[in-house]
């Protein structure tokens, strides 16, 4: 089955583009990354429920054991982690709701809804969250409670 579809795509698009796709889809990396390989194997026969704006793919297969029936294949193949799932898909993925992320995106507040950002802590000092008065916080808040008179302002 899998071989058949692979041969078909080689025939349609040529070997070069097939290999490139193989690499982009992470099949090469899956040889070393068991986790990814497991996901790839899991994907066979599952329905693709949706793709979010980052490219993460959400799969469902209802004849799997409950609890393993929904999963995500991260767009990022090398450095993936759970914080890359945006909040609208989080609920679907964790079976909190049956509404898919695309449906829930409608509920996102227009004016003050923030864009989702993955948690980059561990990637370097600048990505680590520091509380507002922390010494390393780049926007370190000024704790002085008064505003001094500045001589150069009005001179």
């Amino acid at each position, binding site marked *: 089955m899998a071989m058949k579809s692979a041969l078909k795509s080689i025939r349609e698009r040529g070997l070069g583009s097939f290999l490139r796709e193989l690499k982009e889809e992470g099949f090469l990396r899956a040889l070393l990354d068991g986790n990814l390989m497991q996901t790839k194997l899991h994907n066979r026969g599952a329905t693709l429920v949706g793709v979010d704006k980052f490219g993460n793919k959400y799969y469902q297969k209802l004849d799997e054991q409950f609890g393993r029936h929904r999963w995500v294949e991260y767009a990022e193949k090398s450095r993936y982690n759970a914080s890359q799932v945006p909040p609208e898909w989080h609920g679907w993925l964790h079976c909190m709701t049956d509404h898919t992320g695309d449906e829930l995106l409608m509920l996102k507040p227009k004016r003050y809804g923030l864009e989702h950002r993955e948690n980059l802590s561990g990637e370097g000092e600048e990505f680590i969250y520091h509380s507002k008065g922390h010494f390393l916080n780049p926007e370190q808040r000024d704790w002085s*409670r*008064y505003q*001094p*008179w500045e*001589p150069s302002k*009005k*001179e």
Partner: protein
Amino acid sequence: MGLGLLASRAMRPLKYSNSRVFIRSIVSKPELQSPEASSAAAATALEPDLPPRSPVGGARVHFPNPEDAIEVFVDGYPLKIPKGFTVLQACEVAGVDIPRFCYHSRLSIAGNCRMCLVEVEKSPKPVASCAMPALPGMKIKTDTPLAKKAREGVMEFLLMNHPLDCPICDQGGECDLQDQSMAFGSDRGRFTEMKRSVVDKNLGPLVKTVMTRSSVPHNFWLNRCVRFATEVAGVQDLGMLGRGSGEEIGTYVEKLMTSELSGNVIDICPVGALTSKPFAFKARNWELKGTETIDVTDAVGSNIRIDSRGPEVMRILPRLNEDINEEWISDKTRFCYDGLKRQRLNDPMIRGVDGRFKAVNWRDALAVVAEVMLQAKPEEIVGIAGRLSDAESMMALKDFLNRMGSNNVWCEGTGAQPNADLRSGYIMNTSISGLEKADCFLLVGTQPRVEAAMVNARIRKTVRANNAKVGYIGPATDLNYDHQHLGTGPKTLLEIAEGRHPFFSAISNAKNPVIIVGAGLFERKDKDAIFSTVEAIAKKGNVIRPDWNGLNVLLLNAAQAAALDLGLVPESSNSIESAKFVYLMGADDVDLEKLPNDAFVVYQGHHGDHGVYRANVILPASAFSEKEGTYENTEGCTQQTLPAVPTVGDARDDWKIIRALSEVAGMRLPYDTIGGIRSRIRTVAPNLLHVDEREPATLGPSLKPEIKSEMDLTPFGSAVENFYMTDSITRASKTMAQCSAMLLKK
């Protein structure tokens, strides 16, 4: 238990040698076991054998004529009260605090919240105690099941339309509705319908409204704010609109509240409907540390409490002082505090050759000042105290400059040749609370509404209470009570003095006439002539009698009275023109135009205000919220500030700076502590040590030599142009800037 504690126990001699202490016997009373005997015991216990309760808040009863006393019984206690007391007042004297919402002792009685229901014997229904006069022999019961049930029912009605806002409400924690629903309310509500909601009103930059919180069913409206606005503040801006459940409070045309006392509606609102806009969502009241101090933004010296959190002043609230501000304060006092956080001077600075200021340390700054000062000739040294200076620092400044050989020390706003000899010539002799006895006012060149809002509230109270006549001489203004605008200048004054003016007969016919002269006239050249004319009126109109002194001066600044008491009087009136060294101690409003260009100016103060721009050296000092200082208010009452928050940056107390400077200059002042400086003050003006006491002037103006000079006929000006911005603190305040932009624009 520590060893030491054990040892000390063992060493302590036994208090009781009697072994009874160690063996506690359990005694049962067999006589109480039988039902008949115990009911008999209960019957005897019905006699009030509880300890007598003390009146609520130390309330005292004053009997105008003793034969009018009537006797009532509160919870069984016999009680003597004067005729005309309400049931609620009687209960307060008896020590029972009746819950109330709409009743406020300083406002008229509305009687519409029904929270104060009590049971009165032989009355078919519970009575609203705030509106019910006590009658002889009335038996009032405040703690019966009927009264409790009535309160619970009223509470439920009041909470019916009240939103569940407490977690986000600024009143939370100091809310009457919260407290009383805890104490008297039911633990559940039966209200299942929709709550009423009301659109919020814009009452200007100071008062925030959440009108839904004030919605109580039907017209049981608390309306304390309406009564305050019309009765005390004297503005007709707040009123009620609509009927029934559609009734709401409003400013008929969404008008901004133009009163200078509008902040007080925040305090008197028993729910969270009116809260402070600058304080909104800034802090919770239980996080705040209260410091009881006094206000220095005008000469009234209102008693205030500064609420601070850490190094920050969070808000200012009034403190009760019947003699000065009752329980109100002006908006300037209440909302100026954000000025304490802006434009602060926090480092000593020296102006370099390029005209820019550079921050230096104290040692260098003081060395430079001392060096320049020692080079100047004694008569070229001038010291000017600012309008916010405390008595201690003014004493230090005067002592220091006197040691340097100069006698040109004065306080701004007192004019070139102030009269500091006769104390009666610059204080309010009637006293602020004494104004209530007056029945005729003559305001000469003063607009108390902007110069001293609390004095104006007192005059308004008197005008309302006993229909006192008010005559006003000065530029046209809006005093918020009925007054006759007699004229604009000395011409009218002269007419009254010669008895040609009809208002003269009003003064001479009055029982307790009061003349108030504004301190703005101190700046006029012909001030002596004006004062002698006023004294002539006082003499002819019988204003000064042994039992009544109605001749007053209304001062403008907090420092003025103490400065004149300490004798801060310039030696020559044109010392500025020849000055080579000027020491400005917080003086921002001095006219330095005539100062020679080569003069060296030291500015010691807490704000970068007008005074800084001509300065060569800046010495940062602490503001009134950060230091302990003595101030004397316009009626001659000495009061002290207490530090509420730490000083900012490298600032120091005013007197400490001068003391340090004197040592660097080699003229060491002999005091090192604030106690030392106060004992020095004792030798100059002992009344400044009698804190919280009003020291009346002993000698009247009759001792003054006759002055034969003509009055200049130019009309009086107004002393305060902008009520909201009078000193460096209020000028730095954003709230005050908003107020003057929104409220003073006509």
